[in-house]
């Protein structure tokens, strides 16, 4: 097996004044080139923290305590800000959660689609423009010429998300971080966007980290997935295996809490409180054991 595109190993993140509160507990995961890896969990599970740690955009209060994040063998955490910026700028991109706020309201779409191409590929304005039009075509945008001239507020939410997807794939990145890219959209648009991300990813052979709280989305788009609870991996593996034969009770409970399109009429079961209690007990045991080692 070749070296993975992205390899996170034993990543620990903390918050609080003295780093007293763990945010990530020893998370490890590998992503191969061209693979879609889901990070699944409820809010506060640490999935966004992982995404931000990869991108180097952790908020001020959160700190990496130990572990490594290697992109093609280069540990990102040991790089200084400027070299990390240069390394990641063209190789890793982001599809943000809320398309309504993720485009600069004061700049035309053309400027926002071409700026990265001009900076990292050194394209001329005309060449960057052609490439941007091609990208808009790829994301099945109607009237790309008109969209290029538009300001964000002139586009619908779905159109803006297509623009953001086009921008994310513009530089042929090796890795795309999709941070709940469909949460802010309505259901009908959601499915189109998911299909579009999958299509773009397959066409370009891009690795994707897909952050979501929705197992249904994971089933639809991901090859492999990591289930997180309170910053700890609960279960990890091929999505098919996870869904067919969940080993961890948390996974099972999440599946029960998920609407199933293939089983209409099946009622939704809320995650039983006992499952959470078990998870917390497991995490407490983990923390105790680690404290013992130190």
């Amino acid at each position, binding site marked *: 097996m070749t070296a993975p595109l992205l390899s996170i190993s034993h990543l620990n993140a903390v918050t609080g004044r003295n780093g007293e509160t763990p945010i990530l507990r020893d998370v490890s995961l590998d992503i191969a080139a061209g693979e879609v890896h889901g990070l699944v969990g409820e809010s506060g599970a640490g999935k966004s923290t992982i995404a931000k740690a990869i991108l180097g*955009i952790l908020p001020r209060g959160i700190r990496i305590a130990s572990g490594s994040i290697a992109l093609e063998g280069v540990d990102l955490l040991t790089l200084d800000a400027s070299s990390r910026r240069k390394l*990641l*700028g063209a190789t890793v991109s982001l599809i*943000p*959660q809320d398309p309504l706020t993720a485009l*600069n*309201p004061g700049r035309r779409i053309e400027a926002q689609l071409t700026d990265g191409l001009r900076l990292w590929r050194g394209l001329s304005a005309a060449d960057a423009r052609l490439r941007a039009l091609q990208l808009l075509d790829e994301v099945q945008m109607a009237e790309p010429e008109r969209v290029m001239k538009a300001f964000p507020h002139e586009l619908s939410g779905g159109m803006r998300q297509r623009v953001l997807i086009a921008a994310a794939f513009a530089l042929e990145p090796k890795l795309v971080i999709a941070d709940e890219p469909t949460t802010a959209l309505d259901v009908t648009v959601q499915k189109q966007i998911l299909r579009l991300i999958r299509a773009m990813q397959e066409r370009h052979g891009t690795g994707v980290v897909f952050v979501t709280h929705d197992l249904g989305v994971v089933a639809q788009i991901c090859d492999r997935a990591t289930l997180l609870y309170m910053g700890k991996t609960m279960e990890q593996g091929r999505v098919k295996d996870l869904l067919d034969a969940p080993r961890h009770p948390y996974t099972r409970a999440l599946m029960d809490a998920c609407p199933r399109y293939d089983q209409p009429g099946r009622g939704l079961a809320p995650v039983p409180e006992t499952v959470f209690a078990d998870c917390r007990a497991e995490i407490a045991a983990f923390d105790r054991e680690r404290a013992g080692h130190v």
Partner: protein
Amino acid sequence: MRVIAAVLAKRIGMAIVTLFGVAVVVFLLLRVAPGDPVAMMIGAGASAADVAELRARYGLDQPLLVQFGIWLAGVLRGDFGVSISLHRDVLELLSERLPATLELATAACAVAVGLGGAIAIAGTLVRGRKAEAAVDGVNGLMLAVPDFVWALAFVLVLGVLWPVLPLSGRMDPSVGVPFVSHFYLIESLLRGRFAIAGDIVAHMVMPVLALALPLAAVIVRILKEALSEAMMQDYVLVARVKGFSESRLVIGEALRNAVGPTLALTGVQFTFLIGGTVIVERIFAYPGIGAMAIDAVINRDLPLIQGLVLVFGALFILVNLAVDLGAVALNPRLRHGG
């Protein structure tokens, strides 16, 4: 564009009402003032018949409302009367002096915007570090100290203790006045007389800085706040992930969205700058309408005071209008009618 036209029409309508109000207030203020303006005009020793004749000539024997009508009609015809102390047509005096003030005020606005913008951007770039506290401290000082005090401090430091700049006037009197217009700076630049332009600029440095610093401070405070707000937006995050440098994030992404709100919130401060020219011109003996206004008041030169106050009122309103339109023009949502 439709939105801009609508805003323009509404603001101009309001401006006319305000200007009319200004005219009424000036008129009343000077009419309720103790002392007979005519007696002041011709001085002591005039005969009762002379006074009566002058009163009739200026319409001062008419009821107040008719007097106002006469004065307003004159103003609308461009007849502002004759200055009592300078014995010259008021409109002529204004058209000589106004260009000097316009050059001064425009330069001060430009410096304030440039300086304020630069400090706000620098402060945003170093936010969260010790240097930010230094920027805030300096700005606190700039914010607290008014133009009058700055002007005097410059006189002391740059004019006397370390005399590097000329203390008064608009240009070196030995040069003479080789100009056809009263826009000396603009004309000297257009005609390529850079030595003269340099001399004029040297004379402008201190008054311009005195006028610009308080406005720059307000711009810094509001723009820096708006920039920090913008820097927390998702679109900046997206741009950051694209690998843009911090300065490109601030200038290329955040700035354009912070300028409009800043302009809207600082609008009134631009008019304070115009008001500041009165005392600052006086301190530096700069021959604009501000310095002239103080003399006019002290000399009780009624026609000149009325003309000057109207000009100042019109300037204030125009500046407000320009700032409002600027704020609209900088907001793409409004510019394209949503």
